[in-house]
């Protein structure tokens, strides 16, 4: 692969692709080229088999039963919590709360943290390039509590304007909530610096890690953020499972969000006392099987190595960016200096929805739309973009095919 400059020596992509059964299929008579990894990723056979094996032989309720099946399932379930904690660099496994994904994770923090710490006149800071999941919960919270939402602006390349960010911070700031990687542009935000500055005024920090978790080696203690969210289905695991890391000292101060079974210490008909974190935030029977799948996905990522994944995907991004810069009539939306493997682009002649239709005819799965980030689209003056988001199972040849198909489509519409 020396001619593409993609780091084929870092990873054996052909071998990796054999781990993903879905990738070997054809779509409309052409080999599937899957480039919608920022929306959801596919599962290696080890995840599929771990889930199947667990359901076939080990399934049981967790943290309730006192018989063998349940005790064993509980043990496996808690082992995955430890695995997630290690993967993220958390100090204690109890700092990991399982949720259905990032959306629920942010809602949990916005509701619970908001109820305890956000009052009239307080301020919440987000950025202009957030996913709706990291905008709407804070908007709703601000409306409910009489707080104010402030927005970090973004420059033409897709980078947050840090001088403006500093000006937004004040002793009234209760929370700064930003993504690690923008799903619409690919920008990698300077979250360590963002955290430091927020802490300097006494604010807490939530990092939306839905996009970063599968691409960047994490160390939440080094970042020093107070919360960090993730989604299993964006990191080669099942949908319906994800979670949030939170500093134990903050979790302990927070009231429950969803209430019911399993999150209690004691219930009488007059009064309930709550369990300690993480159980306080995990009411009801959790998605047990999906947790097992998440564990298998983390094992798979660890086996390949997050550093290698990042290196390989960076070289794919560089290769793809070079290709797209040469296509006439296309501009890349989001040219930050530090980017994850996402290329969002726009053509004046072919609307993104027409574009993805033609790409689909060539077996290429790309997303066309606003990517649940309408304020980002408004900022760059486009109704939508076409987005190619790459994973470590993608090959440079697939980007060649994409570029060719994009050019063909532009010719049709010009």
């Amino acid at each position, binding site marked *: 692969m020396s001619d593409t400059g993609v780091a084929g020596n870092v990873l054996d992509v052909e071998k990796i692709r054999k781990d993903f059964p879905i990738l070997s299929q054809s779509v409309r008579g052409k080999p599937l080229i899957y480039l919608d990894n920022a929306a959801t990723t596919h599962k290696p056979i080890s995840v599929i088999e771990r889930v199947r094996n667990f359901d076939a032989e080990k399934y049981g309720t967790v943290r309730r039963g006192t018989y063998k099946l349940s005790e064993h399932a509980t043990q496996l379930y808690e082992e995955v919590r430890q695995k997630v904690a290690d993967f993220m660099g958390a100090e204690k496994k109890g700092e990991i709360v399982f949720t259905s994904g990032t959306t629920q994770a942010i809602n949990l923090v916005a509701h619970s943290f908001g109820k305890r710490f956000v009052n009239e006149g307080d301020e919440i800071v987000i950025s202009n390039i957030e996913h709706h999941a990291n905008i709407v919960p804070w908007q709703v919270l601000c409306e409910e509590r009489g707080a104010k939402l402030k927005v970090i602006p973004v420059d033409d390349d897709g980078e947050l304007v840090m001088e403006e960010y500093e000006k937004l911070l004040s002793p009234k700031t209760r929370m700064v909530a930003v993504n690690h990687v923008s799903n619409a542009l690919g920008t990698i935000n300077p979250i360590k610096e963002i955290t430091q500055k927020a802490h300097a005024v006494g604010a807490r920090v939530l990092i939306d890690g839905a996009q970063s978790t599968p691409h960047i080696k994490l160390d939440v203690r080094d970042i020093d953020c107070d919360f960090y969210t993730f989604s299993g289905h964006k990191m080669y695991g099942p949908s319906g499972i994800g979670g949030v890391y939170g500093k134990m000292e903050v979790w302990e101060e927070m009231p429950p969000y969803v209430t019911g079974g399993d999150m209690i210490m004691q219930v009488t008909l007059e009064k309930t006392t709550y369990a300690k974190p993480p159980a306080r935030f995990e009411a009801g029977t959790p998605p047990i099987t999906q947790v097992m799948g998440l564990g298998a996905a983390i094992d798979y990522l660890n086996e390949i190595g997050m550093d290698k994944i990042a290196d390989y995907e960076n070289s794919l991004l560089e290769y793809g960016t070079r290709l797209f810069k040469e296509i006439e009539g296309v501009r890349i939306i989001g040219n930050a200096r530090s980017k994850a493997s996402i290329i969002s682009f726009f053509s004046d002649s072919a609307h993104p929805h027409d574009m993805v*239709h033609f790409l689909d005819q060539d077996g290429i799965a790309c997303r066309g739309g606003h990517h649940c980030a*309408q304020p980002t689209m408004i900022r760059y003056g486009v109704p939508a973009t076409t987005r190619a988001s790459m994973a470590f199972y993608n090959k440079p040849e697939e980007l060649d095919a994409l570029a060719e198909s994009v050019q063909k489509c532009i010719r049709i519409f010009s």
Partner: protein
Amino acid sequence: MSYNNELYQQVILDHNRKPRNFHAIENASHSCHGINPLCGDDITVYLNVDEEAGKIDEVSFQGSGCAISKASTSMMTTFLKGKSVDEARQIKEEFHKMILGEMDPEKEEHHLGKLTLFMGIREYPSRTKCASLAWHTLVGALDKKFDGVSTE
């Protein structure tokens, strides 16, 4: 008449490049703003209706969207001029049924004329709203929905 299941036919591409009746009507008797939140298609349909005769004298649109939504709206405007309000409503129903695959213009009687070009949409369920936005917005205008309409 022969039918073609292909979605992006020359006529559709042509209406996308050069949309017909692509302007606002000042002091229109009816107008409505329609959006397709899933895609970001955003149009406004303007009508001048002769209320006594129940007839559409003028129809135009403005907005932005994908080729399907733009061509669908453009062709709707050329098709409806001079038709009665009742006819327009009936055609909307038939068009909707056709793109959902509930009515086969090859087998059933209809009044869609060249609008059967959009038949291919039935193969692509995610795109039906692109084609139907024009018609939802038209009905919104006729029904005087001042808050606008949405396909969601």
